[in-house]
C-alpha cells in the first residue's frame, strides 16, 4: 500500500490554491495568482503521475489483476450504521488514469491561461475557480463512495458554472452558466435517486461493497433489487438508468446536451479543461465506475447506455457540420465523441475479451482528453488572435499562427482517426467492440466517424486556409511561450498516446487485455475518415460557393440541423410555457389568492359578522330587556326540555 498522505495532497493542493486566491487574491495576489496556482498544480500533477506510476507499475497489480485499493477513508457523515459517507480515495486503473488526465490537462490549461487570461480584472478569481474545479474533479475521480462522487459531482458542476459565468457581465454568459447548471442539476436528480435506490438495496454507499453486493449472484441484495419492480422494470435497472441519467447530463448526452454548446461562453481554456477533457467525461467515468453492476446485473440498462450514446454521437456530428462558431463545432464534436465512449461502454460486457468496449471507452476518453484539449486550446489561440468565434472572420491563419496550425492539424488528424495518431487506436477499438456486439451501432459509429472527419477538417480548412488572411491589428504572434507550450505538449500526447498498450492497464476485470489489430477491419473506418477529410478539403480549402449551394439544396434539412434540431426551442417551450406558466404561475397565483385568500377571508368574515350583529347593541334599553328575557326563556327551554 502506498503512503497515503501524498495522494491526499493531489486534490488538496488545488483546493489550497482556491482558498488562498479566493480569499486574498484580490488584495495580495493580483498578478501573481496565476503563477501560484500553476506551481501548486504542477506539484499536484507530479504527485498524480507518481501515484499513477506507483499504482500501475508497483503495487497495483496483485496476481496479474489490478486491485481496487482504498488507501484512505475519512468518516464524513453517517446516515445509518451501514449507510455512511466515508470520504476516501480509491485507486484502480480508471481512477489512476483519470488522475493523470485531469492533472495534466489542468496543468496545461493553467499554463496556457497565464498568457491567455493575462490582464483580466478577475485574474485571481479565475485561478481560484480553476483550482476549485481541479480539486472537485480529482475528488470525483478518486471517490471511494458513491455519495462522495455525488458531492464532487455537484462541486464540479458548480465550478463549471462559475467558469462559464466568468464573464458575468455578459448576459449570454450568465444565461449559459445558468443553463448548464440547471440542466445538469436536473440530471443529477436522476443520479441522486439512483444512488438512493442502489444504496437502499445494497445497504451501502461504498463503491467496493456496493459493487460486490450487486454483482455476486448469491447476494440477497441483488435478489431483492431485481425482484422489486416498478412499471415492469426491476428496481436495480431503474437505479442504474437513473444513475446513467445523471451521467448523461454531465456528459451532455441527448437530450440533456443543450447546455454544452452554450457553455462555450466561458473562457476558452476553461472549455478545453472542463467541457472537453475532464468534466464532461464524468458521465462516462460514472458508468465505468459502476460498470460491473451494469454489465452483470442489468444489461438492459447498458443497452440504453449504448443506444443513447450512439444516437448522441451521430446527432452531434450532424449538427457539428453546420455550425459556424468554432467553439460550438468543437462542443458538438465533444458531445459526439463522448457518445462514442458511452456506446463503447454500452456494447461492452464484463470480463475478458468481451470487455473490450470498456477498455476502448477508457482509452478513447484518454486520447480524447488530449486531442480535444488541444483543439480547444488551439481554437483559443485563434480566437485570441482574431477576437472572434465565427468562422467567417477567419481564414488563412496558417501563416500567422504556425505552431497553432500544426498542433491543430495533429489534433484534427487524431480525432478523425487517421493512423497513427492517437484517435485512430482508440476509435478502432471502439468500432471493433461495436461490431462484435451490434451492427446497428457499428454502422452508426462508422457514419459518425466519417462525419467527424468531415466537420473537423471543415473547421481546420476554414480557419487556416480558405480565404486569404489579413493581419490582425496590433498583436501579432501566438501569445508566447505560455500558450504554445501546452499546445506542443498536448500535440505530442495526441500524436503518440495511441501507442500506449491501454488494454494492459485498464480492463473490466483488472486483468490485462491484449489489444489486437485487424488490418482488414481498420480499412473501412480509415477510408471513410479520409473521404470525410477530402470532402471537407474540396469544399473549404478555397473560398468558394459550394458549401452555400449544398446548404441551399438541402434547405429544409440544413436549417433544422443548423438550429440544432430545435431542441433548445423545445426546452424553452417546456420550461417557459409549461413549467413557468402552467405550474409556477398557477402555484404563485394559488398561493396568493386561494390559500392566502382563505386566510384573509377568515379575517374578513369575522369582521363581516361583527358588522352584521352590531344591531344587537341598539342602544335601546327596552330591547336589551327583551333580549334579556329571550335569553332567559331560551335557556330555560334549552336546559329544561332539550338538553338533559
Amino acid at each position: 500500500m502506498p503512503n497515503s498522505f501524498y495522494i491526499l495532497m493531489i486534490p488538496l493542493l488545488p483546493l489550497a490554491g482556491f482558498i488562498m486566491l479566493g480569499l486574498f487574491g484580490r488584495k495580495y495576489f493580483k498578478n501573481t495568482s496565476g503563477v501560484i496556482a500553476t506551481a501548486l498544480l504542477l506539484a499536484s500533477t507530479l504527485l498524480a503521475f507518481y501515484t499513477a506510476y506507483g499504482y500501475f507499475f508497483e503495487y497495483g497489480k496483485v496476481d496479474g489483476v489490478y486491485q481496487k485499493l482504498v488507501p484512505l477513508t475519512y468518516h464524513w457523515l453517517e446516515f445509518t450504521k451501514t449507510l455512511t459517507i466515508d470520504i476516501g480515495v480509491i485507486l484502480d486503473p480508471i481512477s489512476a488514469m483519470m488522475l493523470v488526465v485531469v492533472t495534466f490537462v489542468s496543468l496545461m490549461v493553467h499554463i496556457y491561461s497565464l498568457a491567455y487570461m493575462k490582464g483580466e480584472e478577475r485574474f485571481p478569481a479565475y485561478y481560484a475557480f480553476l483550482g476549485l474545479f481541479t480539486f472537485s474533479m480529482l475528488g470525483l475521480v478518486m471517490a471511494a463512495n458513491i455519495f462522495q462522487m455525488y458531492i464532487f459531482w455537484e462541486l464540479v458542476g458548480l465550478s463549471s458554472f462559475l467558469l462559464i459565468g466568468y464573464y458575468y457581465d455578459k448576459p449570454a454568459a450568465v444565461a449559459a452558466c445558468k443553463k448548464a447548471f440547471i440542466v445538469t442539476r436536473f440530471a443529477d436528480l436522476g443520479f441522486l435517486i439512483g444512488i438512493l435506490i442502489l444504496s437502499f438495496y445494497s445497504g451501502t454507499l461504498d463503491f467496493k461493497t456496493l459493487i460486490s453486493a450487486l454483482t455476486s449472484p448469491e447476494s440477497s441484495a441483488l435478489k431483492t433489487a431485481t425482484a422489486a419492480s416498478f412499471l415492469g422494470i426491476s428496481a436495480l435497472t431503474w437505479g442504474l438508468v437513473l444513475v446513467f441519467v445523471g451521467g448523461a447530463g454531465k456528459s451532455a448526452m441527448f437530450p440533456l446536451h443543450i447546455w454544452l454548446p452554450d457553455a462555450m461562453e466561458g473562457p476558452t481554456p476553461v472549455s478545453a479543461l472542463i467541457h472537453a477533457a475532464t468534466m464532461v467525461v464524468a458521465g462516462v467515468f460514472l458508468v465505468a465506475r459502476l460498470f460491473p453492476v451494469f454489465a452483470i446485473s442489468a444489461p438492459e440498462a447498458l443497452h440504453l447506455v449504448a443506444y443513447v450514446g450512439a444516437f448522441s454521437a451521430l446527432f452531434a456530428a450532424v449538427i457539428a457540420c453546420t455550425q459556424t462558431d468554432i467553439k460550438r463545432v468543437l462542443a458538438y464534436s465533444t458531445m459526439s465523441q463522448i457518445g462514442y465512449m458511452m456506446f463503447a461502454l454500452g456494447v461492452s460486457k464484463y470480463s475478458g475479451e468481451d470487455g473490450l468496449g470498456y477498455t476502448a471507452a477508457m482509452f478513447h476518453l484518454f486520447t480524447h482528453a488530449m486531442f480535444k484539449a488541444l483543439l480547444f486550446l488551439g481554437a483559443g489561440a485563434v480566437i485570441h488572435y482574431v477576437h472572434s468565434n465565427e468562422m467567417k472572420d477567419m481564414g488563412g491563419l496558417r501563416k500567422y499562427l504556425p505552431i497553432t496550425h500544426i498542433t491543430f492539424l495533429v489534433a484534427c488528424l487524431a480525432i478523425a482517426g487517421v493512423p497513427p495518431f492517437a484517435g485512430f487506436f482508440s476509435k478502432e477499438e471502439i468500432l471493433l467492440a461495436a461490431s462484435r456486439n451490434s451492427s446497428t451501432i457499428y454502422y452508426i459509429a462508422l457514419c459518425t466517424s466519417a462525419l467527424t472527419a468531415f466537420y473537423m477538417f471543415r473547421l481546420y480548412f476554414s480557419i487556416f486556409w480558405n480565404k486569404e488572411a489579413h493581419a490582425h491589428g496590433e498583436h501579432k504572434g501566438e501569445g508566447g511561450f505560455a500558450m504554445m507550450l501546452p499546445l506542443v505538449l498536448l500535440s505530442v500526447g495526441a500524436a503518440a498516446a495511441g501507442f500506449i498498450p491501454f488494454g494492459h492497464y485498464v480492463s473490466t476485470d483488472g486483468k490485462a487485455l491484449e489489444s489486437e489489430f485487424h488490418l482488414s477491419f481498420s480499412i473501412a473506418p480509415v477510408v471513410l475518415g479520409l473521404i470525410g477529410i477530402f470532402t471537407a478539403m474540396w469544399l473549404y480549402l478555397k473560398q468558394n460557393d459550394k458549401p452555400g449551394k449544398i446548404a441551399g439544396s438541402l434547405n429544409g434539412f440544413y436549417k433544422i440541423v443548423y438550429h440544432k434540431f430545435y431542441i433548445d426551442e423545445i426546452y424553452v417551450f417546456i420550461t417557459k410555457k409549461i413549467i413557468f406558466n402552467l405550474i409556477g404561475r398557477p402555484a404563485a397565483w394559488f398561493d396568493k389568492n386561494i390559500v392566502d385568500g382563505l386566510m384573509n377571508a377568515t379575517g374578513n368574515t369575522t369582521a363581516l359578522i361583527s358588522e352584521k350583529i352590531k344591531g344587537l347593541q341598539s342602544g335601546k334599553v327596552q330591547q336589551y330587556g327583551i333580549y334579556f328575557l329571550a335569553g332567559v326563556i331560551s335557556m330555560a327551554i334549552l336546559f329544561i326540555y332539550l338538553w338533559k
Partner: protein
Amino acid sequence: MNLLLLLLIPLVTALAVLLMQNKQQVRWAAFIGAIMQLVLAVLLYACYRTARLGGQTAAFLFEKKYNWFPDWNISLHFGVDGIAIAMILLTSFVVIAGVLVSWNVEKMTKEFYFLLLLLSLGAYGFFISLDLFILFFFLEIAVIPKYLLIGIWGSGKKEYAANKLALMLMGGSALVLVGLLGMYFGGAGKTFDLLQLSTVHIPVATQRICFPLLFVGFGVFTALFPFHTWVPDGHSSAPTAGSMFLAGISMKLGGYGCLRVATYIMPEGAKEYANIIIVLSSIAILYGAFATMMQKDLKYINAYSSVSHCGFVLLGIGMLTQTAITGSVLQMVSHGLMTALFFAVIGMIYERTHTRQVEDMGGLLKVMPFIATVLFIVGLCSLGLPGLSGFVAEMTIFVGSWQNADAFHRIATIAACMSIVVTAVYILRAVGRTVMGPIRESYVHLTDARWNEKLAAIILILGILAIGIVPSWLNELVKPGAAIIMQKIEAIK
C-alpha cells in the same frame, strides 16, 4: 453548566440595553451580549461533548428543576440534548449576526435591540425547556417582539404583515395550547413535564386528538402548508434582523416543537398522521419551490423558499426514520443559518440599491464583490451544494426517507428530491439577475459591505461551512436525540 445562564444573559443584556444612554452604547451592549451568548452556546456544546464522552447516558443533560406553580405541577425544568444544543448554537449564531446587521438602525434603536434580545430569550427558553408549560410560555414570548419588529421597523405592507403573522402564530399556539392541555389531563396524571410524559403511554384516543393539534399548531410556526401564508408577507415586510430572526429562529421553534413535543410524546399519533404530514410537507416543498420561481422580490423569493425548505423539516419528521429525523434537525440548523444569511444579504443590498426587485438590479458583483459573493454562497447553500450545510441536511433527509420502502414514501421522497432542481432554477435566476449581468448606471457608485456586515456574514458562513464540510460533529450531536424519539416509535411497531 447551568442552563439558566442561557436565559440570564439575554435578559440582562436586554435590560442593560434599556439603561444605555445613547445609540452607540446600545449597539455595543447588545453586541457584547450576543458574543456572550455565542460563547456560552459553544461552551455548552463543549460541556455536553465532554459529558457525553465521559459516559453520561441520560437523555437530557444539565437537568435542573425549580418549582414554579407547584399547584399545577409546573416547574422550571430545564435540560438539553443534542437537538436542543444544535438549536441553541443556531440561535446564538443568528443572534449575533442579527445584532451586527442592525448596526445602523437609527429609529428607536434601544427598543429595537431590546426586542431582538427578548426574542432570543424566548428562543433559548423554548429550546431548553423540559416542561411543556414553560415551553409554551417561551413560545409565546417570542411572538410579540416579532409583531413589533415588523410593525415598527418594517417596510411595505408592514401592518398587514405584522398582524397576519401575529394572528397566525397565535392561532398556532392556541392549537398547541389545547393540545398541551390534552396532554396534561390525558397523560401522566396532570403534569406538563416532558420527561414524565415521555415515559408513560398516553391513550391512543387522546393522541389522536392531541397530536394533530400540537403538530398543526407548531406547524404554523414552521410554515406547514397551508398555514404558511404568514411567511412571505411577514418576512418581506420585516426589517433585516427581523426577517433573520423570524426565519432563522422563530420558524425553528415550530419544527423543534413538532419533533420534541408532538412526535416524541405521542408516537402512535405520529404514526397515524405521518402520511398526512408527508403529503402536506411534500406539497409545501414543491409548491413552495414553484411559487418561488414566480417571485420578483428578493425577500419573497427567500420567504417562499423557506416554505419549501421548512417542508423538508416536516417531511423528515413525517418519515419517521432516525436518519430522516436527524436530517430534519440538520435542516433546521442549516436553513436557519442560511436563511438568516440570505436575509442579511438582501438587507445589505436593499440598503444600497433601495430596491428588492430582481429586475431592477444587475451586475452588483462589480461594485460590491463581498456582498455579491455572500449572496452567491447563500444561494448555493439553498440549492443544496455539497460543502455547504444545505446539502448535508437534505441528503440526510432523502436517505432517511428512502428507508421507507413503500411506493407512497418513495413518491414523496422523489417529489422532495425534485425540488432541488426547481430550487436551482429560482436561485440561479435570482442570483443571476442581481449579481451578474451588466451593471446599472445608477449603481456604479455603490459601496461594499461595512465591517459589521462583513462580520455578520462571515460568522454565518462559518457556521454553514462548519456543517457543510465537517458534518459529522453535528450529526453525532443530533443523532442520539433522534434515536430516543425513534425508540418510542419503534416500540409500538
